[in-house]
């Protein structure tokens, strides 16, 4: 064993993100002082990002199983059965800290990482989405970050060749110094063509494939497990550099290699690179791993074992190959011009041994590296409950139309066209419904099937009431999938929170997970993969709790779907769901009145399921022509969006039981706006009511204005200009940073 030429001081231990008691745990585990390389390995395996040490206890409570779930959390991505022997493989993962420090590279490598997770399992990526949260528009850095992040996502995904078909964008001062970039990817595979990371067999070659290892990204995962301060800019070297071209080659080579039957186990090198991937393959197979770092293809000279074990260079894979298929494998690597090398072998001693220049740099018990990682039951306090706000206590606008125009031009509400036109959303030729709808839809295979994708969370609800907010994130995602006609199958969660060592932040995490769990259970949408990003704080200021939910839904017949724009004039507009005009924590209250307050809308999961099931059936039976769920901005915003998309206006009669502004802008849950042909409206309403679904006709489509009885008509042209104008105008202003 090599002797340390540096002292393992308390300062050095702290720099590795390890607490004194965690270091003691290491000493107890190995019975001696770790080498510097070993200290690095522990820091990589035991940081929050890789070990989930603060969240594990609570993540275990989430429902992760279901009749269609083939692989739940624990693999690179979740795997869900979509009939006919096909599976969808998907996951969402954050790349928040790197994206703040270096927006283009951070976001690009976030996309690269999630795509790799998907194709490592043998699935060809077919869809990508992203959930983005930026600081307040007036913050001097925001424009720069938006511009870089969007360009980075496009730069990577477009070149790689996956359609980016959906996502969310929010602005809030709470993300000023800590943006969120959550990237989602889904791929398709055959159920019998899934590859896992569990190594099998002793004495088998461990093969390194892909780009060379450099010094980029060292300690990336450790950085992602700490708060930021004013010096965070100095962490730029911890951000990885992406090369989507290499990733595309790696994709094709990996899938081709899998077809040869040579791959026994495979793991991509993501966070904590070579360390995590090698340990995971060995530990899952209950084997040991020997690595000879002299064999690792390096980009730079003189890299130490420590640097190589912690490098987060992108576009790299580690695999255990069948030695009998070595020739076929080598031919594939050569064809795609990728570096590959046999860098080690599996052993039966359950040790993780790392050699450099023939010297033993690390010798650790492989199972304990993962299993014995610290796990915390951190103290937490419940967020204080807020009283509901009565609609009558929320000031009404002077002019409904002006308020509506103001609403649709808000940073959080306006069109995201500026963003998604920078993403190739058509490549692969299967995009049936791209960005801008309630959910995006792609077709799958040639049997006429389709998959729908949506990503949702309403952070202000989560802060006001973590449990209801957690429920609402799942419910809205489920509702969006339903609104196009899909049956929600499963979800991935990306939990973004502040510092878990603060009991109130921990309380947000615990509450949101509880809400997510309840909703997933009630709506039969298990969590099959996910990622936790904590310590999203700068100088003590935490982000809004943001548990993004990415959902996948199945459409047996992809032609049986609807969009969220009106399709014809003279149709009847129906409101489905109990709509009472809930204004607490609404966009109207926050941005028009000026201060969000009170309890967020209650989520009645039984009603969600009942209403959604009814709407989905109606879509599949061809009884409705357009569907849009009610969410941010409320009923009138939903109707306005349906009109702007089609350039068809509407005349509405407001409810007499609710104050006008609450009827227009209340954000009640489990509600949909649907259109039906005039001839079938009466029967439709009768059927809905007899099924116990609150349904009422609220108006008709037609004209080029949006008219609410008793208020000034609003021209669609004005609405559209306001809706489409804000983001391009904002982004074209000179960059001040």
């Amino acid at each position: 064993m090599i002797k340390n030429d540096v002292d393992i001081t308390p300062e050095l231990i702290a720099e590795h993100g390890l607490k004194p008691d965690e270091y003691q745990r290491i000493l107890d585990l190995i019975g001696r002082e770790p080498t510097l390389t070993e200290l690095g390995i522990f820091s990589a395996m035991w940081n929050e990002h890789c070990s989930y040490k603060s969240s594990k206890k609570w993540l275990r409570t989430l429902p992760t199983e279901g009749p269609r779930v083939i692989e739940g959390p624990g693999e690179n991505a979740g795997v869900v059965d979509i009939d006919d022997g096909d599976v969808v493989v998907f996951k969402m993962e954050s790349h928040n800290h790197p994206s703040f420090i270096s927006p283009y590279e951070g976001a690009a490598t976030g996309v690269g990482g999630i795509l790799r997770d998907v194709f490592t399992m043998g699935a060809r990526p077919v869809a990508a989405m992203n959930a983005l949260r930026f600081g307040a528009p007036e913050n001097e850095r925001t424009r720069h970050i938006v511009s870089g992040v969007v360009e980075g996502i496009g730069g990577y995904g477009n070149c790689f060749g996956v359609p980016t078909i959906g996502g969310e964008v929010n602005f809030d001062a709470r993300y000023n110094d800590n943006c969120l970039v959550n990237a989602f990817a889904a791929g398709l595979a055959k159920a019998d063509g899934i590859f896992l990371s569990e190594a099998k067999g002793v004495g088998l070659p461990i093969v390194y494939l892909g780009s060379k290892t450099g010094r980029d990204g060292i300690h990336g995962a450790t950085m992602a497990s700490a708060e930021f301060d004013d010096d965070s800019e100095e962490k730029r070297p911890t951000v990885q550099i992406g090369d989507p071209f290499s990733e595309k080659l790696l994709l094709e080579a990996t899938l081709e290699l899998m077809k040869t039957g040579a791959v026994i186990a495979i793991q991509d090198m993501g966070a904590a690179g070579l360390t995590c991937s090698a340990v995971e393959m060995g530990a899952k197979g209950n084997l040991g791993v020997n690595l000879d770092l002299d064999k690792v293809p390096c980009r730079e000279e003189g890299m130490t074992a420590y640097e190589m074990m912690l490098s987060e260079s992108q576009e790299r894979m580690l695999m255990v190959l069948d030695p009998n298929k070595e020739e076929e494998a080598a031919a594939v690597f050569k064809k795609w011009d990728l570096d590959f090398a046999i860098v080690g072998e599996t052993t039966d001693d359950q040790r993780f041994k790392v050699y450099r220049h023939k010297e033993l740099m690390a010798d650790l018990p492989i199972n304990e590296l993962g299993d014995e990682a610290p796990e915390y039951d951190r103290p937490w306090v419940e967020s204080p409950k807020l009283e509901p706000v009565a609609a009558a206590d929320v000031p009404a606008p002077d002019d409904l139309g002006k308020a509506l125009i103001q609403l649709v031009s808000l940073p959080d509400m306006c069109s995201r066209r500026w963003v998604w036109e920078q993403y190739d959303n058509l490549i692969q030729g299967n995009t049936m419904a791209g960005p801008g709808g309630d959910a995006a839809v792609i077709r799958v295979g040639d049997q006429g099937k389709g998959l729908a994708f949506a990503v949702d969370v309403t952070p202000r609800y989560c802060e006001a009431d973590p449990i209801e907010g957690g429920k609402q994130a799942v419910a809205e995602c489920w509702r969006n999938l339903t609104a196009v006609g899909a049956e929600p199958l499963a979800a991935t969660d990306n939990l973004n929170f502040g510092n878990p060592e603060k009991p109130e932040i921990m309380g947000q995490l615990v509450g949101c997970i509880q809400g997510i769990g309840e909703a997933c259970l009630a709506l039969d949408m298990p969590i099959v993969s996910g990622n936790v990003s904590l310590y999203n704080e700068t100088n003590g200021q935490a982000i809004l709790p943001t548990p993004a939910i990415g959902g996948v839904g199945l459409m047996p017949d992809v032609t049986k779907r609807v969009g969220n724009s009106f399709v014809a004039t003279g149709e009847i507009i129906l409101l489905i769901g109990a709509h009472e005009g809930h204004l607490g924590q609404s966009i109207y209250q926050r941005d028009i009145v000026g201060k969000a307050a009170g309890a967020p809308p209650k989520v009645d999961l039984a009603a969600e399921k009942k209403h959604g099931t009814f709407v989905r059936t109606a879509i599949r039976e061809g009884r409705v022509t357009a569907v849009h769920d009610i969410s941010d901005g409320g009923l009138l915003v939903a109707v306005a969006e349906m009109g702007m998309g089609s350039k068809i206006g509407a005349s509405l009669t407001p409810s007499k039981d609710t104050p006008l502004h609450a009827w227009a802008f209340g954000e009640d849950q489990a509600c949909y706006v649907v259109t039906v042909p005039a001839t079938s409206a009466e029967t439709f309403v009768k059927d809905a009511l007899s099924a116990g679904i609150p349904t009422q006709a609220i108006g008709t489509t037609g004209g080029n204005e949006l008219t609410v009885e008793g208020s000034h008509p609003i021209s669609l042209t004005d609405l559209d200009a306001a809706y489409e104008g804000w983001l391009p105008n904002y982004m074209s202003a000179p960059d001040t940073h």
Partner: protein
Amino acid sequence: MKSAVIVFPGSNRERDMLYALEQIGGQKPLTVWHQETTLPDVDLIVLPGGFSYGDYLRTGAIAGLSPIMKAVKEQADKGVRVLGVCNGFQILTETGILPGALLRNAHLKFVCKEVELEVATNKSVFTSAYNANQVIRCPVAHHDGNYFADEDTLNRLEAEDRIAFRYTQATNPNGSIRNIAGIMNEQKNVLGMMPHPENLIEAAQGGTDGRGIFESALETIA
């Protein structure tokens, strides 16, 4: 008619193209790897979209030096039909098979949207299925589609009826000079175009306006 699609490292719309050719031509096209030096006997050679060699150095520059491109040029000279779409168009200008260059989009951003194309001539093997001056819908998806050539070249292209497609003035997505979206060589057997007709060939994709190019080139309609 038989067709072949050339695949370079970084091509990424080759599957879309293979699908379109098979759907419309009724025959599975061949796939040819860029390191080949000869081409199979086909009636149509297609250079698909993508980011060959990651667009490094300059779009299409490295792919233009691939071994297969010598064979493509020979076949083009012999009169075999060659269609280059997006990155394929960029490769054709890099190799000098087509004149001009594709610069970075005027607004400096990648753009993916639907545009309108005017069929500038239907007197070609690629556009005969359309009416003259017909306006069709077609998606674009590129970062470097801003066509440029010197005045003399542009005048010659126009005089020789070699402009196949123009963006309508209102939908020019990239600043291309004279709204040029696609041009042909002197013999009019090579077409390069930035838009992606292969992504709009069936009702499920929202329209069939892109079919005409393949129907023309593969002579699937009498």
